[in-house]
């Protein structure tokens, strides 16, 4: 099956809004090369469960493609058309299982040494689209906050090594009531600019009560989902003939109901929460990885305007000798390892925030919880500098968002 034969009835299995999107742009989809269309369908098929920012991006991209003549489409997508695919891929059910196709296509591109050509084509296409269809203005500048090191009494190593060069390092921050001050500040932002899925609070531990104006996700709250999912994965593994590809495919098809999530809840958010476990790697094992991956996905998908992330200690990786001797304590936490993990995760938080539109005006704060060390990044703050000013976190935050 090639895209030029696409018919509306072939999308009967798509959710209602996704089907409507496809039907509106079917003529343009027919003109696109096979190496490209399933990547687009992979996004469209989940349209009903996408965040507003994602829907807008899909709509804009499709509107742009539909505005092109067949000759213009041919020229724009030539690098993709030059990718050769196997007959097996062509004959697979890429309409109904686009994600599976994309995964198999990726393996095929590696095998046939076409991955670099595809990467170049995709990067150039994305960059051009950014220019042709720029995102609309945002009502406030983005703010990211990472709170790391919960439970650590002290740390001798150098924190915020990567972030310091981009902002100002403060070593006399007053830590009193620090997290509450930060949470209050982001809640105020959410009140002042109430936009669905624009203001987030992610917690790698239990999470504190927060305003419904903030979209929140916590590791502890999702514990039952995580446990159910691990059981499902184990059952899959034990089935004869099950390999990693089949497992991934099965995981991708799970719905919130399959893992006991409440159908009455916000279906967009529930899908997002589930995908943190089914698409993330290590999120099922370590809370620090969960918080880092959730941060990446909130920025990539929801394009949050405000994102407060608090890292909690993760479980310890059990060394071989303890496993063998039976002296292990499965509940034991790795405080220092968690701090190191979260320190790099804070850096990745900032990198992911900088990938978004209007990044030159965004601000970022990373704080060692309970301690006096923080790094603040804002357009007007000096880079690579240090301040020993005694300042509380509320004032520091006000300083960088002013």
């Amino acid at each position: 099956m090639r895209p030029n034969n696409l018919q509306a009835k072939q999308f009967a299995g798509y959710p209602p809004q996704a089907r409507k999107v496809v039907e509106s742009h079917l003529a343009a989809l027919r003109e696109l090369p096979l190496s490209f269309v399933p990547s687009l369908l992979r996004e469209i098929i989940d349209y009903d469960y996408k965040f507003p920012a994602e829907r807008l991006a899909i709509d804009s991209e499709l509107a742009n493609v539909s505005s092109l003549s067949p000759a213009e489409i041919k020229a724009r997508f030539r690098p993709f058309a030059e990718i050769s695919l196997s007959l097996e891929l062509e004959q697979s059910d890429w309409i109904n299982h686009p994600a599976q196709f994309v995964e198999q296509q990726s393996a095929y591109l590696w095998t046939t040494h076409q991955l670099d050509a595809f990467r170049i084509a995709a990067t150039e296409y994305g960059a051009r689209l950014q220019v042709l269809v720029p995102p609309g203005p945002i009502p406030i500048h983005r703010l990211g906050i990472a709170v790391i090191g919960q439970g650590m009494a002290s740390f001798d190593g150098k924190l915020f090594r990567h972030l310091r060069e981009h902002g100002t390092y403060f070593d006399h921050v007053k830590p009193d009531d620090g997290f509450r001050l930060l949470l209050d500040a982001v809640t105020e932002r959410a009140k002042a600019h109430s936009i669905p899925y624009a203001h987030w609070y992610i917690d790698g531990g239990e999470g504190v009560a927060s305003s419904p104006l903030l979209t929140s996700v916590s590791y502890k709250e999702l514990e039952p989902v995580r446990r159910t999912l691990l059981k499902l994965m184990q059952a899959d593994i034990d089935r004869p003939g099950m390999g990693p590809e089949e497992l991934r495919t099965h995981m991708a098809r799970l719905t919130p109901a399959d893992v006991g999530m409440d159908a009455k809840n916000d279906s967009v958010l529930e899908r997002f929460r589930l995908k943190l476990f089914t698409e993330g790697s290590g999120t099922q094992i370590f809370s620090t990885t969960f918080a880092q991956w959730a941060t990446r996905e909130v920025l990539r998908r929801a394009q949050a305007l405000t994102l407060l992330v608090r890292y909690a200690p993760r479980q310890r990786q059990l060394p071989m000798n303890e496993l063998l001797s039976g002296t292990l304590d499965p509940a034991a936490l790795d405080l220092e390892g968690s701090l190191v993990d979260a320190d790099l995760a804070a850096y990745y938080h900032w990198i992911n925030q900088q990938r978004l539109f209007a990044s030159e005006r965004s601000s970022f704060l990373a704080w060692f919880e309970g301690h006096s060390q923080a790094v603040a990044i804002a357009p007007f703050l000096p880079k690579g500098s240090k301040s020993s000013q005694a300042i509380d976190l509320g004032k520091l935050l006000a300083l960088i968002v002013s």
Partner: protein
Amino acid sequence: MGASPFVRGEAARKNRKVIVITFGGGARDQETFAPEGQENIPNLLHDLIPQSSFFTHVTNQGILGHYVATASLATGVYETLNNFSAVAPQHPTVFEYFRKDLKRPSSDAWVVAPSNGFNRIGESECRSYGRGQGARVILPKHLLSAAKPGASADYGHLLRDNYETPLYTPQISGDLELHQLEMILKLSVDDFVAHARTLSSPDELSVYIAKRLMKQDAPSLLWVTMHDIDVAHTGAYSLYVDAIRRTDRLCSEIWHAAQSDPEYAGNTTLFILPDFGRDSDFDAGGNGFQHHRTGDAASRTTWMMALGAGVRQGVLYDNPIQSVDLVPTLGAIMGFSPAQAQGKPIRELL
């Protein structure tokens, strides 16, 4: 009565031993030899580098999966096999070339590998090479599992095959099981398990087995595949860096074990190289150090060091080489002909 230099040269080549350590699975320059990563590799940096020829620009143009990439290192061809299947390499391995051309017994080529997925790495299924012509493969974690039957539920973390698909472990069968311990390693099951209890990681177990092999069998071609670093797939940066530090220490241990063993001292060349790197922090398609999926420069570019017999000391080479150049280089050093390998011998090592 003295023989001609040519005879002496040939005799030296016959006695030549080579150890290859893959610094796996997947380490970036920025956590190893780049300035900010050097604190993680004190042994390589201060002990081994001064004795070695160091190649700063090694590229892997193949598929960046640990088994397929290690198989490519061992065949000198960018293999395209399924990374998660227990299948043989598609081209003859260095072990087959070595044994066939030099008429060496199976006891002279060994692979110590970390996981079940590597059990077929010792030989291909190629005509005129293949079955029975390659290296003997020992899988320390698999041995441990055999030594503690029924205990895999308790040791799930330890026996985990890889971190990329953490719950998936290919089932293997083979005749080399517990009798390897007694027959080859001269080690009782009880002693093996007791010693394993003193070690903190699977790679430490691999190095223990490798050193035991060196003592008991003294193979001329020993290939040790490290894999602890693959813990990066869990997303825990501290564990990834800890694994790099451990691997750094273990490489040094193997080198010093060789130097203190009369079978190896003075006639051994050691090669250390990562199978590949990991994704850059700045490639939006990846998630930094966690994976090696983007195929970007950071994930493809790495380094190699060679030290010991026949190698110039303290030299840095910045010219690009490829990971598939290893096998032709080993062929030139040891005197066999890797006919199907795609790489080229590294002239700086000849």
